[in-house]
């Protein structure tokens, strides 16, 4: 197997400009191993791709609003997705008010796109997000001239996006504090941080969500009990904070002692040293790892359906329950999967970009 390794170095980007049929043939059939691989994977693709294409596109019903067209067709029923897109994306949010979650989604995505540019990482960005979230919660929840919509009616993509962004947003400073606590010289602080971080990381997120949804009513006095949305948010935040703490701790460990000494020699107190000298460097070191953790969190928000929150999957399931349509489950979940894929794939490419740029930034 290792025979193929040294050859992979030939495929440098510069070579592709001169790639010709002959070269392609050589890559595909140049060695016995490559020929065998080509035959094997060629056969695999020939068996799987045409039927997939037939189902996905050729035999599929695209926009026909008549449910019976889907019953007659052998391919995918995309017209269902098209007809139900509002319900899929926004769940049980009141029909007439759907423009509100739509604006919220666009706002969050636009802000995310804006925020990933390293040029916009200033303290102003934080203010922008805080302002945006005031606007978002007003748009979603209503009041001040808008019809009120309780969180139990929130659903679909905005729930997924809000949960992701808020959980990470709160978890990030908490994670920093936990990471600092884990490196503290005070034993009680250190032990507390270790116990919290390691027990959260040792548990499946689902079990934490269960604890949050089943146990909180028992743990807390009734007056303090938050609604389901906030409970899920608390669980996701604790989970994210523990993982982010470990990532940030990795960055802190990469900072040489001389930086602490130089800051101390200048008379900078502890928190100033951390905020102005240590953390900016530590976080820069772990940006790729942070991006990965954020991708994990984007994917993890899909679990809130299990505790009965109305995210994308639940709204998909609700849409499928319509007896008029032939319940095209595979198409619906493919659509939902594609939304998650688009979110996390684009974030992953951004992480790659940062990783490649990383060494030059110093």
């Amino acid at each position, binding site marked *: 197997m290792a025979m193929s390794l040294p050859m992979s170095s030939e495929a440098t980007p510069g070579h592709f400009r001169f790639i010709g049929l002959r070269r392609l043939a050589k890559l595909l059939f140049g060695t016995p191993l490559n020929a065998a691989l080509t035959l094997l994977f060629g056969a695999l693709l020939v068996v799987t791709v045409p039927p997939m294409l037939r189902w996905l596109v050729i035999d599929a019903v695209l926009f026909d609003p008549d449910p019976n067209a889907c019953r007659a067709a052998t391919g995918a029923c995309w017209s269902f997705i098209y007809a139900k897109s509002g319900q899929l994306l926004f769940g049980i949010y009141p029909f007439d008010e759907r423009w509100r979650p739509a604006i919220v989604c666009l706002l969050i995505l636009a802000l995310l796109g804006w925020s990933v540019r390293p040029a916009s990482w200033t303290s102003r960005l934080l203010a922008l997000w805080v302002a945006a979230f005031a606007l978002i919660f007003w748009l979603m929840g209503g009041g001040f001239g808008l019809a009120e919509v309780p969180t139990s009616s929130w659903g679909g993509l905005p729930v997924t996006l809000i949960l992701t962004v808020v959980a990470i947003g709160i978890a990030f400073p908490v994670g920093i504090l936990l990471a600092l606590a884990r490196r503290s010289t005070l034993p009680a602080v250190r032990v507390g941080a270790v116990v919290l971080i390691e027990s959260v990381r040792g548990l499946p997120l689902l079990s934490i969500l269960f604890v949050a949804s089943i146990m909180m009513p028992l743990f807390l006095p009734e007056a303090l009990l938050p609604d389901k949305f906030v409970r899920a948010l608390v669980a996701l935040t604790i989970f994210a904070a523990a993982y982010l703490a470990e990532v940030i701790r990795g960055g802190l460990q990469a900072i040489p002692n001389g930086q602490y000494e130089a800051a101390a020699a*200048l008379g900078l107190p502890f928190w100033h040293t951390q905020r102005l*000298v240590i953390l900016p*460097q530590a976080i820069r070191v772990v940006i790729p790892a942070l991006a990965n953790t954020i991708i994990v969190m984007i994917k993890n928000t899909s679990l809130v359906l299990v505790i009965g929150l109305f995210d994308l999957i639940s709204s998909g399931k609700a849409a499928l329950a319509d007896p008029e349509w032939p319940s095209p489950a595979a198409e619906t979940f493919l659509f939902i999967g594609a939304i998650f894929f688009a979110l996390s794939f684009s974030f992953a490419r951004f992480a790659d970009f940062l990783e490649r740029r990383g060494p030059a930034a110093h």
Partner: protein
Amino acid sequence: MLTSVSAIRHVPSLPMTNDPTAVEMVGVNKWYGTFHVLKNIDLTIQRGEKLVICGPSGSGKSTMIRCINRLEEHQQGRIVVDGIELTGDLKKINEIRRDVGMVFQHFNLFPHLTVLENLTLAPIWVRKMRRKEAEQVAMHYLDRVKIPDQAHKCPGQLSGGQQQRVAIARSLCMSPKIMLFDEPTSALDPEMVKEVLDTMVSLAEEGMTMLCVSHEMGFARQVADRVVFMDQGEIVEINTPAEFFSSPHHERSKLFLAQILH
């Protein structure tokens, strides 16, 4: 250039009290675990005095000057800096650190900040200076260490000698009363040693109180009032530079000089 420097000539902060002593160490002892790093150190440094501390590696000379601004904690004895005794009191420690500048072997500049930001960080956040004022002060000292044109670069883009001069300027921005130098030239390429030493000499000529851990004999001869020789955690000999280099009193001093001069 010279005129611009003398126009806003730096006046080292004058002693606030009449006490002529800058640093006083009495019976200082320190251990790393069971290893005795500093043994009964007694040392008094007058204001305006220049001290060069030398000795073989592991002799405790760095540890000693790092005790002066409490980068290392001593376990026994008394250290009084500028009239303030060093104890566990964090407030007093920060007070002392504000008035004691330190230059490190590996510069320890903040790589994520520009040169100018490196210089203004402490004046703004510790001295509560306004940004504009801090930048003026910073440019003044960058001028003095002769690299005002590098102000907006990152430390990584400068040569070692330039970085060390930035580090000196960074300390000077806090208008320190005492400057500690921990082997400031030993991480530098040979051709850059002179530019850093020149900066230190001019600083000495202005009357700064200086403690330098250094093996640069030329520098010691030129500026030092006294040379302190340390070995195995003890102060073995304190002498004038002329006498120390020509006829050291102690056997261990002789052995050490023989080693570094050949």
